[in-house]
């Protein structure tokens, strides 16, 4: 599949908040409560369309446990977007850790990375421990986009991924990124803005490899 742009996303947050479920819901449109916990990193990808342009999202789903932070940090490199996820039913453990996740992201990702804060498991309203307002407040303070979502019911899942992409796309149009510099987590594909890296990784049908 050819694309105009490829954006690299990274999903971060404490273990068990539903990062992998969010990814699966977005890529496969299903909720699978029974799956293996994430070790290291896992990948997902999906095409979306923004402004009539095909955009490929390549999503990195990371392991959340504290011990793995040092390795998780190496995944930030070249991410255009990050979904920072907490679990609305676990106030103390997951919401309180947001600040340290954010710190990691700010430190190891590029400064223009778009960060979406997601309060997941909003289907479990009866067990809510973090109010929507608290989430909004945190996002506002730290300049993040915010949404509550449910990987189980799929509520706001599309929206979360796509509005992040739309924000990145807007930044491109505003000239925030040098899209030919892949360290911003953006690759230009066919139909995108031609640049030095135009066409690279553009299509599976691309023949052979170049040999420079």
């Amino acid at each position, binding site marked *: 599949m050819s694309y105009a742009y490829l954006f690299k996303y990274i999903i971060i947050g*404490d273990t068990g908040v539903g990062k992998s479920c969010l990814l699966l819901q977005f890529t496969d449109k299903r909720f699978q409560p*029974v799956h*293996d916990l994430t070790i290291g990193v896992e990948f997902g990808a999906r095409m979306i369309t923004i402004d009539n342009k095909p955009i490929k999202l390549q999503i990195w789903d990371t392991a959340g446990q504290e*011990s793995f932070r040092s*390795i998780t940090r*190496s995944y930030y490199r070249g991410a255009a977007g990050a979904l920072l996820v907490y679990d609305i039913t676990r106030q103390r453990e997951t919401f309180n850790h947001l600040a340290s996740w954010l710190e990691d992201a700010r430190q190891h990702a590029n400064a223009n990375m778009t960060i979406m804060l997601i309060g997941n498991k909003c289907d479990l309203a009866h067990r809510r421990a973090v109010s929507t307002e608290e989430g909004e407040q945190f996002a506002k303070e730290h300049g993040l986009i915010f949404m509550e979502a449910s990987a189980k019911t799929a509520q706001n899942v599309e929206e979360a991924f796509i509005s992040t992409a739309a924000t990145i796309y807007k930044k491109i149009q505003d000239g925030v990124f040098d899209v030919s510099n892949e360290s911003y987590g953006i690759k230009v594909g066919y139909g995108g803005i031609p640049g030095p890296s135009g066409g690279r990784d553009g299509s599976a049908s691309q023949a052979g490899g170049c040999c420079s």
Partner: protein
Amino acid sequence: MQESAELHDLSDDSDYAASQQQQQQELRSVVRTDSGKKIVESESEGAEVVFLKDNVTIHPTQFASERISGRLRLIKQASSLFMTWIPYKERADSVGAVTEKDRNLYTIRAVPVTDIRSIRRHTPTFGWQYLIIVLSSGLAFPPLYFYNGGVREFLATLKQHVFLVRSADDVNVFLVNDFQDPLQKSLSSLELPGAVSIANSSSTPTFANSVPPNENFEGADVGTSSTSQYGGRHGLKVNDPARDLSIQVLEKFSLVTKFARLTTSNILREIQNDGFLANDRKKPSQSLPVNNHETGLDEVQSVPDTISVTPDPLEIFIVWTSIEGLSDAELCPVKQKALCRKENQGEEAATRVGTFELVDCKEFDKITLVWGQPRQPPLGSEEWATFLDAEGRVTDSKALRKRIFYGGLEQQIRNEVWKFLLGYHEYDSTGAEREYLASVKKVEYETLKYQWQSVSPAQSRRFTKFRERKGLIDKDVVRTDRSSSFYDGDDNPNVILLRDILLTYSFYNFDLGYCQGMSDLLSPILYVMKDESESFWCFVALMERLGPNFNRDQNGMHSQLFALSKLVELLDSPLHNYFRQNDCLNYFFCFRWVLIQFKREFDFEKMMRLWEVLWTHYQSEHFHLYVCVAILKKHGKKIMGEEMDFDTLLKFINELSGQIDLDATLRDAEALCICAGENGEACIPPGTPPSLPVEADLLYPLQDDTDT
């Protein structure tokens, strides 16, 4: 008097007496006629032929027309003994299948006998007796077939001049220089990859280093061929565009070469009549399938007769020596020649050496090699019983570990044998002792388990660490192997067992606590053991070694990934350089492999097979790192060819999950491990998991494990 006993022993040989006589006649005739002139000359320099045998022949191929006969001699000069084997000059009437070049190639020019490490005598049921002579360097000469007999007196003569003893392991092996550990000795002398250095020096010690004691001993038989051919053959021109290709080829063969040298020395160490050697002979086809589908070379058009040979060391030797002697333009014919050698499976050697494959003759850079010993069928309960004495002790743990290393275990005996491999049971414990241990350990487990079971809700409210740990474990056990029938479904009791064991472990080893990945390690153990307490103690034993993988500061992981980078540097320097240039030297892309021992890279059965192989610590305690190297090396061409960056590489490696051919990988890893030898082990700092920690006290430096 031992000597005469030995000599007497030699006389049990049917042709001993006759050949002894023959030898004497020959010697006399040598002195009198054949080489009379030379001897006279050499005597002036103190040289004396103490043994001479005609029609000693090598078999470079299966074709009788390509055999090369010659004369084997032992020559004494001053106090030193030298061995020579000079091929006969081509007779005018010969069909000419053997070229002069071949003849020169195999000529053995006055090797000091002190350079010989060992000699293996082969006595096939049909055919001629032959010897394989292995040098201290680890290199072996092609088998020398004694068409006229004379093996015994050759050995007897040697024995009169050098210290020659029979190997304790094998009556057919004679050690000339009785090193403590011959293999290690030979490994230390091996060079490491790097095509140029291979081209420059790898073979020279064999021939060129052995200065002929007397030039007169050659020449008379083979004309004026000289050592200069060996010394000056590496005419790689600096500006030759084909040079890079040639170096690649040499690099590939350099590993084969080293492997060949090692396997030949291995042959000497192996007990020839291993139980499972017989299996090999029965199923030669087992090693035949070509793994094109997993070589990553699907797109490559293989030659129709793509072959998988189980060559004897001689064959590899031939390929190696041939290719070094040739210019780039000549490489292809050599390749063809190598491809021709497929049916030549000398019965003994073939099964011990393994396989190498040459795929696609047309393109050298597409050559792939699969090597290492063929895998064996898993150890079953009947054979397992043979490893136990009457009281149930494992009598030869090394043999057992070796057997498992090459074949793994059948499922029904895993629960018994894993306990030994993991170190929970001592090999020399009796069955009764183990039964007793199980009951003691069960009580101990229950006590440990009760520690957390007895935490009241009120206590729990004041015990954050406990609550967090329990919460984490509760979350993870329902995300562990739930697709396997053993753990699937709601309220599966096995999931509860996983939870209980992990929680108990986090109390047993409170400093380490619980970390993600542990449930992956426990799950197969519980699946195999079924019993809760036994699973716990096996897990404890495993964590003695793998615990550092889960240290908060990740030092166990970092030291392994560091060692891995050193091993790749050693065994695949182009790939290492590529990683270095692309900022991939942290090897984080191998993180999951190492953290949970490839648990996620194979299906359940294959994963258990791999684990038991790793746990034998047979070739190396760190065999898992060689497995990493084997997989990386296999895909190195693709990684570099597609110029994968860190991200792409990570994704690529992740997606290899389920795509890795375990058997081929194990064989490659074994070969790499043997190739690397001491230099490989030197890459791995002491205490690197799964080695036991250097200082047990510092196992788990106090760490704050609240998730903040």
